[in-house]
């Protein structure tokens, strides 16, 4: 025999499912008790009082319910978690239960209208935009939203990255601020890519607390994630890398060359990509972008033995696009060096040869032309003078004869 109060302590969905009617009666009685005991508060429409009404039931340990999908949904709310969250007491304006659970304002609650927990989560995420309007608008065209719109409910919504009752602060714990949180958050779904990133030099440095290295959202802006497979993304990706790698001040801290972007654009691949970007930004080009050689997520320094661009691995990387390439072919890539007598002396020699030959040849041509044109002009002027003089003389002779 269970006492009435004990029976309220619902422990399992199975139990709830079997005895929901009885439980509801008990909960309703309890609610009445609260209403009787504290009529002033219960009748007030303050959110704080509403919260307490919710907590009357939802602080019950191990309160659960069985969803139509047979998932068991815990209904117990830990007030400590709420308090510590961005919506908690330290927030300028604490967010109350019904602000988010805005269709669950009375008791008994409306029936659970979603087939499973995920659908419920997706549905609930829509309420975030009621307050966070800008972010809701921002993410409308993101890759995740597009997938959601196409009916793939596993695509991330607000709560997947920011949490729900434990929604993170816009401070150290926010995934946009502590970017290590970001890798965790993204990695919950994109686990393989997150692991690749963690192996990369960027990921290693991020784990050490470095604030300069890119994390997920540096390249895939959190609320406006584009399709990284699109032609636009491909074409602008070198500029994305260049934002940091052509920044002299930033790169000087790590002793990394800032020539990488310019030397890329100066070379065949980069020139083509650059032209495509300005003339046909929606068309694909198969000329390599940074990530084709350096990989997109597992980027390693060129002296790392696992790097795709390490000298010993370079030919294999070239062969992904140039299947017939041999080691000497990969030597034709100047490794982002500007040619100098130290690196690529033949190229330097050719450049110097022409830097002397062109001014010399064209200089001699122009000098000769100047002389020749001057003389020709003088000759022709003299000729004209003589011709005019001859004509005058003829006229004078004619005049002399006439009188």
């Amino acid at each position: 025999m269970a006492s009435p109060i004990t029976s309220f302590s619902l422990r399992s969905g199975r139990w709830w499912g079997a005895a929901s009617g009885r439980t509801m009666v008990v909960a309703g009685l309890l609610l009445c008790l609260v209403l009787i005991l504290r009529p002033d508060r219960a009748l007030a429409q303050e959110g704080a009082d509403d919260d307490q009404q919710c907590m009357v039931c939802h602080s019950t340990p191990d309160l659960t319910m069985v969803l139509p999908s047979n998932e068991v949904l815990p209904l117990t709310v830990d007030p400590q978690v709420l308090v510590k969250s961005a919506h908690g007491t330290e927030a300028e304006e604490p967010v109350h239960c019904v602000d988010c659970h805005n269709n669950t304002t009375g008791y008994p609650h409306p029936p659970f209208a979603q087939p499973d927990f995920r659908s419920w989560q997706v549905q609930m995420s829509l309420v975030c935009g009621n307050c966070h309007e800008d972010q809701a608008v921002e993410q409308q065209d993101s890759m995740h939203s597009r997938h959601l719109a196409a009916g793939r409910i596993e695509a991330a919504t607000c709560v997947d990255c920011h949490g729900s009752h434990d929604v993170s602060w816009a401070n150290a714990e926010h995934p946009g601020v502590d970017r290590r949180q970001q890798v965790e958050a993204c990695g919950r779904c994109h686990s393989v890519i997150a692991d690749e990133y963690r192996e990369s030099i960027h990921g290693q440095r991020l784990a050490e607390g470095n604030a300069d290295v890119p994390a997920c959202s540096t390249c895939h802006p959190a609320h406006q994630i584009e399709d990284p497979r699109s032609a636009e993304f491909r074409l602008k990706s070198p500029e994305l890398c260049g934002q940091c790698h052509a920044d002299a001040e930033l790169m000087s801290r790590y002793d990394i060359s800032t020539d990488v972007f310019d030397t890329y654009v100066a070379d065949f691949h980069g020139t083509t990509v650059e032209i495509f970007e300005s003339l046909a930004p929606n068309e694909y080009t198969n000329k390599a972008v940074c990530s084709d050689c350096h990989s997109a997520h597992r980027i390693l320094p060129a002296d790392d033995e696992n790097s795709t661009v390490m000298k010993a691995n370079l030919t294999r990387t070239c062969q992904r696009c140039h299947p017939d390439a041999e080691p000497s072919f990969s030597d034709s890539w100047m490794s982002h060096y500007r040619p100098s007598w130290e690196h690529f002396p033949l190229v330097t020699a050719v450049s110097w040869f022409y830097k002397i030959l062109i001014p010399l040849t064209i200089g001699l041509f122009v000098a000769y032309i100047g002389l020749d044109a001057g003389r020709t002009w003088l000759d022709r002027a003299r000729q004209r003078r003589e011709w005019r003089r001859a004509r005058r003389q003829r006229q004078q002779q004619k005049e002399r004869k006439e009188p």
Partner: protein
Amino acid sequence: MTEQTRTFERFGILERIEHFLLLLSFTLLAITGLPQKFATWSISKTLIRGFGGIEGTRSVHHTAAVLLIILSIFHVLYVFYKIYVLRRPLSMLPGLQDVRDGIHMVAYNLGLSPTKPAMDRYNFAEKIEYWAVVWGTLIMGLTGYMLWNPIATTRILPGEFIPAAKAAHGFEAILAVLSILTWHVYHVHLKYFNRSMFTGRLSYHEMEEEHAAELKRRLQGAERPLPPPHERWRRSRLYLPVAGVLAAFALLFTYYFFTIEQTAITTLPPQENVNVYIPDRLPKLPTATPIPVRLAEAGVPERLQVERTPEPPAISSHPVDDARGDCLSCHNVYGYIAPAPIEHAERTNDICLDCHAVAEEVARR
């Protein structure tokens, strides 16, 4: 005065066609090549757009390059025809006389010499231009081939030759275009408008100015005498088949060399074979959390606090004592027989009895 209105044949129809094709291929190569070298300039982008984007521009460049190569093959064979069959003098070969003529011309231009040099069929300025074209075509053809077929090239040469060829190709292009814009434009467009490449003929006055030695010779004797027909015929019978074979060989060679390799795949580079969505770390459901008893101490505000009466221990249907062994072996928190609440999970019988034995007594009373 009749002599002064006379015109002199300078270029035959084949030379004029050659020049026209050279003009066409050179211009196409220049306006499709230089925009690639100066790709960031806005005029370059306009030109590239005009050729239907960079891939179209490169196609035109390659086509014009093949035209120039075929033209060069033809030119070499035609020169040999003129030398061997027609027994023309090697009038394009530079010699000491050209140096003398050049110095003489400069001296005249400086006013140091009263007369202009009397120059032959090809004066020194024309020889400079001809040999510059030969040099330029050789360099551009060679480096262009290397850039077009980098894999085949690097089977023979070290890799560094490719960027070196690219540098040379670009610089040589600038040299060629600037030479045309200065030397060629000045001599045949600005100084005089020399139409002989289109009409085939030069006036007496033009001959007098630039080819005085040739004029004198042609006024004295026959106009460029040809060998007797039977000799021409005899030599042609030997030369033409040889030239035909050579031409076929050269064209096949050209075709082979420019289709020797498939430099790169024509599809997008293989993208990383990563399954993007592997949510193996995604919590399926939020996990229930134990509720602390002292909410006020934990900093929970009043609005979230509900004073909960500690739940009375359940009253057992059997005597509560140690006789049945471990309480939790039956009242397993996950079990079916009056399962204990989850926070009882680790408790020992002593702790169980503390409350439940008392509760039983109270109930009996």
